[in-house]
């Protein structure tokens, strides 16, 4: 992380404002998400994280960057995609910040805004998963791997062959997808849920904006570099 890339609080670009609003909306569904303001930058999260060594921004830095007004850097980082969602940080955080759930919110935001770091196709896996689920109501593991590798790296499918064969020998591969019976109603639930907005806890949102200190920012402030 280059220090000059951290934008100064109080000067938010239009994009940053837009991201921030969407992020706060994503956070609304996380109970007690306002705790993000209580971070004391102790680094327990980073120390507990088994994959922080592979991240470009550590979990501690992630919170600091959010508070410093640079969501864009966070969204472009490898960090949110390398998180294995093991919840070690969240259970140990002395300030009770829901770090893992916040990273989920960031993932959804990145997908919503279509900001992906290059060569990190984690979202492809999730999207393949969703596609199968919508079709069958249950997950078909073999299909998931095929969809995923076709999307990202078809050559990788071949390197899976030896393991696939070993699994097949032990009768551990399901060749046909299991389907739920009431697929029609299942799809109706999905359709309706897609339309439903997240509950907007307006008070919490306003509170969040105030406590992280950006409510005072003038709406039309433009970064020096973007002028």
């Amino acid at each position, binding site marked *: 992380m280059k220090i000059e890339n951290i934008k100064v609080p109080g000067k938010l670009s239009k994009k940053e404002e837009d991201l921030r609003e969407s992020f706060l909306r994503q956070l609304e*569904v996380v*109970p007690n998400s306002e705790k993000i303001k209580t971070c004391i930058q102790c680094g327990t999260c980073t120390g507990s994280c088994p994959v922080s060594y592979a991240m470009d921004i550590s979990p501690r830095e992630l919170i600091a960057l959010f508070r410093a007004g640079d969501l864009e850097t966070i969204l472009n980082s490898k960090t949110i995609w390398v998180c294995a*969602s093991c919840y070690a940080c969240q259970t140990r955080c002395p300030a009770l910040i829901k770090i893992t759930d916040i990273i989920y919110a960031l993932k*959804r935001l990145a997908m919503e805004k279509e900001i992906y770091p290059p060569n990190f196709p984690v979202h492809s896996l999730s999207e393949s998963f969703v596609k199968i689920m919508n079709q069958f109501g249950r997950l078909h593991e073999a299909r998931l791997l095929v969809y995923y590798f076709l999307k990202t790296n078809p050559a990788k499918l071949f390197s899976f062959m030896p393991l696939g064969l070993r699994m097949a020998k032990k009768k551990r591969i*399901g060749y046909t997808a299991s389907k739920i019976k009431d697929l029609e109603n299942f799809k109706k639930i999905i*359709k309706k*849920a897609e339309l439903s907005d997240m509950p907007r806890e307006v008070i919490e949102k306003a509170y969040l904006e105030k406590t992280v200190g950006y409510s005072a920012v003038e709406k039309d402030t433009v970064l020096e570099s973007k002028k």
Partner: protein
Amino acid sequence: MDYTYYPGCSLESAHSSYSDSVKKVFNHLDCNLIELEDWNCCGATAYMSVKETVGFAISARNLALAEKHKRDLVAPCSSCYTILAKTNRYLKELPEFHQTINECLKEANLTYNLSVNIRHPLDVLMNDIGIEKIKQKAKHNLNGLKIANYYGCQIVRPERGFDDREEPMLMDDLFEALGGVNIYFPFKVKCCGGMLMTTYEDVAIKLSKEIIASAVENRADCIVTTCPLCQMNLEAYQDVINKEYKTNYNMPILFFTQIMGLAFGFNNKELGIDKLLIDSEKFSDLVIK
């Protein structure tokens, strides 16, 4: 006692052995597992990371279906367990969100009134059935089998559930009672890498390697787990780990119900131990001398 059973997708295919052994163990202890009619995939972490409301809505469909039966819902897969429990918790904590989800469920003439308890088999076995009954029902002693109890992430985190989040002990207590020896195993709640095995293989390989290395160093005969994904990562990728780190690991990775089943006198085939990729024959000989 009767429970509603939620097998989950993974236990239908690659890990049918887990499902088989859970059922065998429960039946042996005079408990019935009644499969939830027309359950759907819980959505796992993948769905929630794309579309949260939809993820919760489809997960809640299972809860709504289960509610009719007024029994606790037992989910052996760690991921299903944690997602169903998370859905339950969120709907309880966010009344507005509960309302939104119920509106979605209404489309399928369902409604969920927050009354289902989500249980993991380990919790049920230790807290409902109890260690005394398990001991009584055991036919064999585990004869000092050296076990690395691997709980993984999802049954102990994020909220404090039925066991400690940093130092869970239920499996340790269980196998000690059955005559096993619990080795020192500081990696009992460390992450195996989970789905990173498909997306960032090098990272997941490293995490899994550390877990196996710790078990090997402490001379475990096997690693015992509660999670299908942990089982898969630790077992199926040992070849890759051996190649990458020039090691020579050959560690059996079993589900906790498989070891219990052996103590109860079931055979390899009944418990799906023959479906393991590593030395299953040799292994059961080791347990039952």
